[in-house]
């Protein structure tokens, strides 16, 4: 990609960042709303761990860290960014994108990454505050561990983007996006390990989850952050994330070429 065409996408990313800032009250309230879920889960696990040292290889300290890092990973690419992709298709403004000399998929990725910067910052602040109250959290101390977590975190956003993008494209065939959004969220939450660590699953469900791309969204970065993997294993998990990113990206491109033929726009 030439420098000039790369600049177009940078501009899109900056625009989407400004858009997020324009609706900051809704943005922050939405964020706090998801924080309620975190508090409920925290208290539930606290009650579960009362009188127990560990469950399925997790101590209470590790579970606390698991919840916080999961919240951080999940707050990236929130409903806000997701609905902006499907919204374009539902209200027909995708037509404008078809006229522009940019690739739809790359442009959406640029916008998503733009708002992810702000989402990441805000959740860092909230998590930082929460971490003060929940002491005893162990995050990777050494440089390589931090680097691996950083890479896996970024890859996790890419994996999630690819899945979100494809589910948004399904809106070419429907007239509403909520149903698809809900279905995608519940499948992702279960199979990525966002609801409960995958090691808690019965064997068959754990194997199924590990064979699907969703585990790259939460399970991989969180396990690396908690230091539950060896060095080599961590690199291997990141490699798996990237295999999925490439596969899903190509699949997304194919789906777009099919979907765009479906387009129906009423009036203009």
């Amino acid at each position, binding site marked *: 990609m030439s420098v000039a065409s790369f600049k177009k996408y940078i501009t899109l990313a900056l625009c989407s960042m400004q858009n997020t800032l324009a609706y900051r009250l809704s943005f922050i*309230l939405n964020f706090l709303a998801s924080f309620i879920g975190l508090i409920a889960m925290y208290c539930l696990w606290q*009650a579960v761990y009362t009188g127990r040292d560990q469950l399925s290889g997790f101590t209470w300290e590790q579970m606390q860290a698991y919840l916080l890092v999961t919240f951080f990973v999940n707050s990236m690419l929130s409903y806000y960014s997701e609905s902006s992709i499907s919204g374009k298709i539902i209200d027909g403004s995708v037509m404008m994108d078809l006229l522009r000399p940019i690739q739809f998929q790359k442009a959406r990725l640029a916008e998503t990454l733009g708002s992810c910067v702000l989402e990441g910052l805000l959740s860092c602040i909230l998590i930082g505050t929460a971490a003060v109250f929940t002491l005893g959290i162990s995050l990777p101390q050494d440089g390589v561990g931090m680097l691996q977590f950083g890479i896996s975190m970024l890859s996790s956003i890419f994996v999630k983007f690819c899945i979100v993008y494809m589910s948004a494209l399904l809106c070419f065939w429907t007239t509403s996006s909520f149903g698809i959004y809900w*279905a995608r969220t519940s499948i992702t939450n279960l199979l990525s390990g966002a609801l409960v660590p995958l090691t808690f699953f019965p064997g068959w469900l754990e194997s199924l989850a590990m064979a699907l791309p969703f585990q790259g969204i939460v399970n991989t970065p969180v396990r690396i952050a908690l230091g539950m993997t060896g060095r080599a294993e961590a690199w291997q998990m990141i490699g798996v994330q990237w295999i999925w990113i490439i596969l899903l990206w190509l699949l997304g491109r194919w789906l777009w070429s099919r979907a765009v033929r479906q387009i129906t726009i009423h009036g203009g």
Partner: protein
Amino acid sequence: MKIRNTPRRILYLYWRLYSQQLKAMLEYSADFYIMIGAAALTQITGFLFLWVVFSRIPDIQGWGLWEVAFMYAAIYVSEGVGSLFFEGTWRMLRLVNLGELDRYLVRPVPIVLQIFCTGIGMNGIGNILIGGTIIGISLSHVQMDWNLSTVLMAILLFVSAITIRIAINLAANCSSFWIRSSGNAFPIMIHNLGEFAKYPITIFSLGIQLFISIVVPFAFVSFFPAAVLFGKEPWSWWGWLGPLVAVCAVWLSLGLLRIGLGKYESAGN
């Protein structure tokens, strides 16, 4: 001529308004099935979560899997009834921001009835089906002696629970009269407080317990009715306050709507 709003007239009007919406909904049948499927899927994964947790531990503070599943499903069923029959509360923001409420104000039909019928959430069917099934299985797993009085009591508690849930929805969405924003963020935040009522509330700090019992009474939708049905002491007597709380909640939310309507200025179209 003065028109009297007898219960019969209200039911008739509700049915007429509702059936018109239903016809509009059925135009898009693909969405209809996707919504039902998505809601069912969400609930099944929620139940799987509980099942996975309880496969590792016997109980949470004396509450077994099926007792917690009952509470979990109660929250979902109440949400489902809200979506299926009273979804319009979630459209209030649109009605107020776009000035569409004008239309409603000039009709000789109670405003709240028109608001309720502004939309239908087909996801409610998914919620009610799966939630109802989970409640049924839960009740069959928990030792209870059913007789006429317990059945009547269960029905009374159920109706109160649903009423409270809808009153909370209505009150939360009245925020659109005050908060000038483009999104439903505030009512969604209130809606999310329901997360706390999916589990025995004793696992939370006293502040949260009081908040979801008194300020936003989600505990009366799931926890207290469950406590009465399963005879959990010392909570069961609280459950008897359910019908009273329902009446108060309805009264307060309608009051809030009235104050909000007083503040309403049309968008000027």
